[in-house]
C-alpha cells in the first residue's frame, strides 16, 4: 500500500526502535489488514476475529488507541507508518557493547522527548571506543566516546608523564 499524505497524529511505540522494526510493523499491519478485509468479504455477516498479533503491533495499537477491526483505523495507521518509513529521522548510534533493551528504551525515550518524537535509531557496535557512544546523523558525526575524550586530553597526560619523569 502506498503511503498517504494525510497523516493523523499518531506516534511510534517505544518498541519500534529502528527502521527494520518499523518495516516489520508495517508488514504485519498490512497482513492483518488483508486478513481482516478477506474475512469481511468472506463472512460479511460475522464480525471478523482478530488473529494473534505480535507485541510490536499490540503496542502500536495501544499507543495510538485505534480499533484494529476498523478498516479506516488500520488504513490511517498504515499510512502513518509508511510516512514514518519515508520521513522519520534516523540516528546511527554505536556503543562499545550491545545495549540491553531497557537501555535502548531509555535512550529512545530521551531522544523522542528531547530531539524528535519520531526519531528512529540504528544501533552499532564499536568495541574500540571504550565507553560512551558515537552518533551519526544525516550530515554530522558526534564522537562522544571515551577514546575521543582521552585523545583530546592527550596533552594533559603528556604533561603529567613529563612531570613524573622529571
Amino acid at each position, binding site marked *: 500500500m502506498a503511503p498517504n499524505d494525510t497523516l493523523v497524529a499518531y506516534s511510534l511505540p517505544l518498541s519500534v526502535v529502528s527502521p527494520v522494526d518499523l518495516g516489520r510493523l508495517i508488514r504485519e499491519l498490512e497482513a492483518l489488514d488483508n486478513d481482516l478485509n478477506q474475512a469481511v468479504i468472506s463472512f460479511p455477516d460475522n464480525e471478523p476475529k482478530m488473529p494473534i498479533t505480535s507485541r510490536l503491533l499490540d503496542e502500536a495499537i495501544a499507543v495510538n488507541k485505534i480499533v484494529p477491526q476498523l478498516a479506516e483505523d488500520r488504513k490511517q495507521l498504515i499510512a502513518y507508518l509508511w510516512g514514518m518509513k519515508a520521513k522519520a*529521522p534516523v540516528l546511527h548510534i554505536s556503543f562499545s557493547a550491545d545495549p540491553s533493551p531497557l*537501555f535502548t528504551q531509555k535512550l529512545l525515550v530521551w531522544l523522542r522527548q528531547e530531539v524528535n518524537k519520531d526519531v528512529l535509531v540504528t544501533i552499532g557496535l564499536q568495541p574500540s571506543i571504550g*565507553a560512551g557512544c558515537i552518533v551519526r546523523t544525516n*550530515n554530522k558525526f558526534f564522537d*562522544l566516546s*571515551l577514546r575521543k575524550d582521552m585523545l583530546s586530553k592527550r596533552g594533559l*597526560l603528556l604533561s603529567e*608523564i*613529563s612531570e613524573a619523569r622529571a
Partner: protein
Amino acid sequence: MTIWWLYLILGLLGAVGTAFVWLIIKINGQGVAPKKNAPGTIEEAADQDVEHIFNEEFREELRNRGRLHFEKIIGENAMFLQQDLRLTTSQLNEYMKTEITSKLKEEFAKYEESIMDAKQLAIESIQKTNAAIDEQRAILGDQVKGEILAEKQQLVARFEENMTDIVNHYVLAAIGNQIDLNDQLEYILADLEANKKAMIEDISSGA
C-alpha cells in the same frame, strides 16, 4: 880632370873583381878532388883494418854480452819495478781503504743524518696528524653527543607521545569491558544533551 879620375877608379875596381872571381874558382877546383875514394887510399886501408878487427865473431860476442847485460838490467829493473809495484799496490790499498772508509763513514753519517731528519719529519708529521685527529675526534665527539642528545630527546618525545597512546589504549581496553552500558547512560545522555541543538538542527534541515 875629375872624370878621368872616375874612369880610373872604376877600372881598378873591375880588375880587382875579376881577380877575386878567378881566385874563387881556383880554390873550388882544389877542394873537390880529394873526395874521390880511389882504391888504394888510406881510408880504404883503415876500413879494411876495421873489418879485420871487428869481424863477425867478435860482433856476435859483443851482441851476446850486450844481450845478457840488457837482460840483467831488464830483470833488475823488473824486480825493482815489481817491488815498487807491490809497495805502490799496498799503499794504494791502504789509501783506498782509508779513503773508502772515510767516504763510507761520511756517507753513513750523511745517511744517518738524513734518516734522522726524515724520522724527525715523520714524527712531526705524525704528531701533527695525531693533533688533527684528536681535534677532529673532539669535534666529532661533540657532534655525536649533540646528535645523540637530540635523538634521545626526539625518542623520549616520541616515546611519550606513544606512551599516551599506550596508556589510552590500555585504559580503554582495561575499562571498556568493565563499564556497563547502563552505568554509562547518564554520561551518554549528558553528552547527547550537550550536542542536542546540533542534532536537532541537522534533523530539521532534512537534507
